[in-house]
C-alpha cells in the first residue's frame, strides 16, 4: 500500500480523491456500495443560507462524452445541512467540505458564519454556479467580484477556505491571483462550462432552464489546461476537477498542478469510479516507486 495522503491548508486527506459538489449529495447516497471513509473527502451539495427549491425540470441532458445540468442549487439550507447531515458525515467520512453559494455578499457571510463553529473541515466558496439567476457565477467572472466575496468570507470564518473558480472567463489566472491575494487557502477548478442542447423535433431546449453547465470527459482537456495555467500563476494548492474518470486522468491532472482531485460526472457513469481511481493511483505509485503524490504535482515538462 502506497501512502496516498495529501495535505491542503493544513488539512490531511488520506487520499486525494474527493467527491465533487452536487454529484454526491451529502455523502449519504452511495454507502450501499462502499463506506464514505474510502474517499479522501466529500464536497457537499452547494448550500445557501436559506433553502432553495431549484430550477424547473428537466435539469439534465446528455452530450457527447458529458452532460449538461441546471439544478439551480436546490438545497435544504445551511442550517438543515448542519442539523441533518453533518453529524453522520463527521462520523462516517474523512474530510468534509461545505460548498457554499449565495446571491449577495451577506448571504455568503451568513453561511460562512453559520459553519464556522461546526465540524466542517473546509469551506469551498462556490462563486461559479452557472445555473442561478442571482449571484453564483456573477461573482466569479470578475476579479473585483471574486476578490470581494473572498475577502468578506475570509473575515467571517477561521475555516480553511477553498475558492472554486468558473471556467467561463477570458483569463482564469487573474481570478486565481485575485482570490489568493484576499486570503484563499486553496483554489478548486473547474466548475461547469455553460452549454446548451436543443431537441430538433420540438425545437425546445432539453433543459427547462434553456442553458446549463457542461461536465464530464468532454471538459477534461479544458480543465487540465486551466489547472496548469493556475499552477503557474499562484502558490496556493489546487484541487483539480472536470472530466476525471480514470486514474490516468487523475495523474494527468496532478502533473498539470493539482494537489488533490474531485470527481463528479464519472460517478454517474460508474459509481465505483472513485474507488477505481484510488486503487489505480495506489498501483501507479507502487510500480513507479513514488513515495508521495507531491512528487508528481506540477511535474509536467512543458515545451
Amino acid at each position, binding site marked *: 500500500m502506497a501512502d496516498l495522503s495529501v495535505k491542503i491548508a493544513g488539512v490531511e486527506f488520506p487520499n486525494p480523491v474527493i467527491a465533487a459538489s452536487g454529484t454526491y449529495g451529502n455523502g449519504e447516497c*452511495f454507502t450501499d456500495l462502499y463506506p464514505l471513509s474510502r474517499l479522501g473527502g466529500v464536497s457537499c451539495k452547494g448550500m445557501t443560507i436559506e433553502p432553495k427549491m431549484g430550477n424547473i425540470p428537466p435539469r439534465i441532458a*446528455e452530450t457527447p462524452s458529458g452532460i449538461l445540468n441546471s439544478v439551480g442549487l436546490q438545497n435544504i439550507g445551511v442550517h438543515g445541512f448542519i442539523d441533518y447531515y453533518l453529524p453522520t458525515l463527521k462520523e462516517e467520512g474523512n474530510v468534509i467540505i461545505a460548498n457554499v453559494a449565495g446571491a449577495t455578499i451577506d448571504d455568503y457571510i451568513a453561511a460562512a458564519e453559520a459553519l464556522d463553529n461546526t465540524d466542517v473541515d473546509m469551506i469551498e466558496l462556490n462563486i461559479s454556479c452557472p445555473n442561478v439567476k442571482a449571484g453564483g457565477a456573477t461573482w466569479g467572472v470578475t476579479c473585483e467580484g471574486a476578490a470581494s466575496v473572498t475577502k468578506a468570507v475570509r473575515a467571517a470564518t477561521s475555516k480553511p477556505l477553498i475558492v472554486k473558480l468558473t471556467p467561463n472567463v477570458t483569463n482564469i489566472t487573474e481570478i486565481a491571483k485575485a482570490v489568493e491575494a484576499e486570503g484563499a487557502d486553496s483554489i478548486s477548478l473547474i466548475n461547469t462550462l455553460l452549454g446548451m442542447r436543443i431537441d430538433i423535433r420540438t425545437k425546445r431546449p432539453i433543459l427547462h432552464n434553456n442553458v446549463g453547465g457542461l461536465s464530464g470527459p468532454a471538459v477534461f482537456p479544458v480543465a487540465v489546461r486551466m489547472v496548469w495555467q493556475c499552477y503557474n500563476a499562484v502558490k496556493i494548492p489546487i484541487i483539480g476537477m472536470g472530466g476525471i474518470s480514470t486514474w490516468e486522468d487523475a495523474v494527468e491532472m496532478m502533473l498539470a498542478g493539482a494537489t488533490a482531485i474531485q470527481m463528479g460526472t464519472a460517478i454517474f*457513469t*460508474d459509481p465505483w469510479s472513485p474507488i477505481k481511481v484510488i486503487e489505480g493511483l495506489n498501483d501507479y505509485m507502487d510500480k513507479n516507486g513514488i513515495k508521495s503524490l507531491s512528487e508528481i504535482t506540477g511535474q509536467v515538462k512543458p515545451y
Partner: protein
Amino acid sequence: MSYYCDRYPIIEKKSISKDTFSMTIYAPEPAKAAHAGQFATISAPGFTLRRPISICEFSRSKGTLRFVFEVRGKGTEAISLLNPGDNLDVLAPLGNGFTVPDTARRVILVGGGIGVPPLLALAKKLGDRSTAILGFRDYSRIILADEFEKYGANTAICTDDGSVGYHGLVTEPLSNTLKNVGADLVCACGPMPMLNAIAKVCAENDVPCKVSMEQRMGCGVGACVVCSCLTVRNGQEYYSRVCKDGPVFDAKEVKFNG
C-alpha cells in the same frame, strides 16, 4: 433496502414487439432485494448517462432480473445490441416500488405503452387480486398482455386506433370499473398525461392511486437532484427526486402540471 452495482451476465434476450426487447440477467443479490415497481439504471456502452429501466420481473429463487424496454434513442439502441453471454452493467434495485396493503383485495393495474413492464411484477405478486387495463397505440405495440393473464390478472386491452380490444383511452374502462365494481387501489405507469387523467378518475371515485413517474436522471440514487418531480405535502410545494423519493408516488402528492 439496499442496491448493488455490478456486471451481470445476460441469460436471455428476446424481441417481443417492434423495437421492444426483453432481457433477463442473472443477478442474485439485486433479485433478492427487488420489489415490484423499482427500477435499475443500465449502462449504455459508450454513453455518459446510465438509462433508467424498470424491473419488469424478478425471481428470488432463480436469481434473475428481467427488463423490457423500447429502443427510443441511441442509448437504448446500444443496450439492445448486447446479447446472451455479454454482461449488463446494472445498478439495482433503486427507488420505492408499489406498496400494496395486504388488505387490498382488488387492485387495478393501469399501464400505457412502455409503462406496462413494471406492473407485471405486481401482477405476479397479486395474482387474481389484480385487474390489468393496458393501453397501446395499436395491435403491433401490444406487449406482455398474455403474461398478465398467466399470473391471474383479469386483463383488458385498449388501443388508440381500436385495432384490438377497447377503442380509446384506458381512463374509460378504468372509470367504468371503478363505478361498477370499485377497487381498493389503483397502480399506474405510463405517459404523464395518462397518469394525470388516471389520478383525476381515481380522485373522483375516491380510490387511492399510486403513479410511477419518469424523469431524466443523473446518479439514480438521490445524490444529484436532477430528476425532479413537483410534489405537494402539507400544502407545501417542493421538488422530490423521482429516483429516491419515487418513482412511485401517491397521486395526490404529484403536481402533474409542475
